[in-house]
């Protein structure tokens, strides 16, 4: 008797569980906008989405991270509505998307400066692009060679699924990374590692370590960067430097959609590019879209 009842009960339970999960998801999927990708962008897009949802209570937006590569793979496979990416899609990725009937549309919605960070005790306050490149190639291995103390440099970087990893390699290092570089699982882990490593150097999105007033999280140094030996070094903490391009490591942040978006998605993207949206971008520690990219967005027909 007992066996029979418990058997019946568990069968019922299983049935209820399965039944429950199907219909619930279907109901939500229609209204919820899925955004997935770059770890650099995840906090920024989250704040944008929250502000937008406050104004439009019937729109649901879900934002997740995982890296630009993850987001791009998701848009190619049709698993997300918007892919956040801190790098442009590669030619082979675009071809792959087209083979699957996906037409990726690149929208630039913010500008990011990459900060070079070191431990607070490190006396090196400025580096040139050339020095940074040599450090990450493994050609400079001691802080002594860049006017620092006699101490081996410990390299920290992201993993290959990160847009920041690719961007930094293509534009700054311009060669393979040194194999001694520790590949950290996300920006937060780079920051955490450098806070406890006096010989460390790392690269992270500025929004991750500084707020809009330029206050940096504790136990971290943000290095000033010079384009070359002749130019002066500029700090990324002053937003003027990044927006005017004086600070040499800045990049556009992308959102990819499958073809021209419509409905709530278009409304959200337009709002991101509006004055109000761009103010949220600035408050989150990033920089508004430059005129050149805004023009590009206009040509796509995203905004007037």
């Amino acid at each position, binding site marked *: 008797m007992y*066996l*029979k009842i418990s*058997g019946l009960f568990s069968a019922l339970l299983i049935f209820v569980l399965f039944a429950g999960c199907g219909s619930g998801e279907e109901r939500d999927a229609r209204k919820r906008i899925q955004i997935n990708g770059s770890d650099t962008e995840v906090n920024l897009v989250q704040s944008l989405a929250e502000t937008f949802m406050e104004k439009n209570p019937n729109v649901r937006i879900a934002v997740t991270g*995982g*890296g630009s*590569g*993850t987001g*791009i*793979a998701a848009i190619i496979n049709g698993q997300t509505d918007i892919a956040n990416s801190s790098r442009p899609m590669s030619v*082979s*990725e675009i071809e*792959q998307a087209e083979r699957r009937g996906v037409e990726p549309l690149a929208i630039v919605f913010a500008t990011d400066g990459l900060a070079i960070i070191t431990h607070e005790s490190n006396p090196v306050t400025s580096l040139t692009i050339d020095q940074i490149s040599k450090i990450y190639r493994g050609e400079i291995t001691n802080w002594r060679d860049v006017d620092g103390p006699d*101490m*081996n440099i*410990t390299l920290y970087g992201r*993993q*290959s*699924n990160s847009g920041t990893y690719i961007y930094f*390699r*293509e534009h700054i*290092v*311009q*060669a*393979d*990374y040194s*194999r*001694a*570089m*520790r*590949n*950290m*699982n996300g920006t937060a*882990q780079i920051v*955490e*590692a450098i806070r*406890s*490593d*006096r*010989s*460390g150097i790392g690269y992270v999105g500025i929004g991750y370590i500084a707020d809009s007033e330029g206050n940096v999280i504790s136990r971290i140094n943000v290095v000033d960067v010079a384009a070359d030996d002749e130019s002066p070094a500029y700090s990324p903490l002053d937003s003027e430097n990044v927006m005017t391009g004086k600070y040499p490591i800045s990049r556009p942040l992308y959102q990819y959609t499958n073809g021209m978006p419509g409905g709530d998605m278009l409304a959200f993207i337009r709002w991101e590019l509006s004055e109000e949206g761009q103010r949220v971008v600035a408050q989150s520690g990033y920089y508004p879209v430059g005129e050149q990219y805004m023009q590009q967005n206009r040509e796509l027909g995203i905004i007037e």
Partner: protein
Amino acid sequence: MKLRHLTDTFFRYLFLTAGVSAIGILFSIFIMLAINGLQTFTDVSIAQFFLSARWNPSAFAEPSYGILTLVTSTVMVTIGAMIIAVPLGIGTAAYISEIAPAYIRETLKPIVEILAGIPSVVVGFFGIVFLGPLIADIFNLTSGLNALNGSILLAVMALPTIVSVSEDAIRSVPREFKEGSYALGVNRWLTLIKITLPAASSGIVAAVMLGVGRAIGETMTVLMATGNALQLPVSFFDSVRTMTANIAIELGEVPFGSTHYYGLFAVGLVLFLMSLAVNITSEHFTKKYRWHRK
């Protein structure tokens, strides 16, 4: 009566299906790994794959597919973990089953087993924020994200398996063995070392092999705590990238059907064969130990 008979048959077939599907799933996984993994070798020579220490499929310049660094890292971290966990685990097991008074045994055993329930991501986080800086301090290194860190964490994760399986083995040594030893005037320590542990040895070896299996396949903890550098490690103070961590890092973004994609399956295949070998060894010893008991 009839209903009971029906229920019996129903459940017999239910469990049969469960058992058969477990085997079926295992084989399907193996075949999928093999089919995908072996395609790597249309582009990469077998010699390069196994003997080169340069793994860089998404390279700036020339991609390369050598798993020597990954295999070395996995083996190193696993051996390190066992050096720590084996003496500690057998010692704990011997203490729990032979020496500890009942009330200590009743508290200690469940506590050790709870260790197994800590999620690996929590262990990894502990490695980053606590153990890493501690190792750096003690050994005067700049960074504690290295093979030693991973080994210690994996040792902690393998301990529950080693302790509980070897405790069972030690406890099932027949009382006559020990009593014979005591009767000859041998003290407890020598009896434990010379009689009980050797009599339980095949069970203990099985416990160690299970611990190795646990350590070899662990992903999240080593991914977080070892730094994942791609250099061939030469000491326990170097950063390592294990096979599991490498798959976890790269599989999320790899283009479907590329050499890189197949290469990751090949790494998985090698890992699968490694842990299969470990499991078969442990099964072999477990069988011996069962035979002992009879």
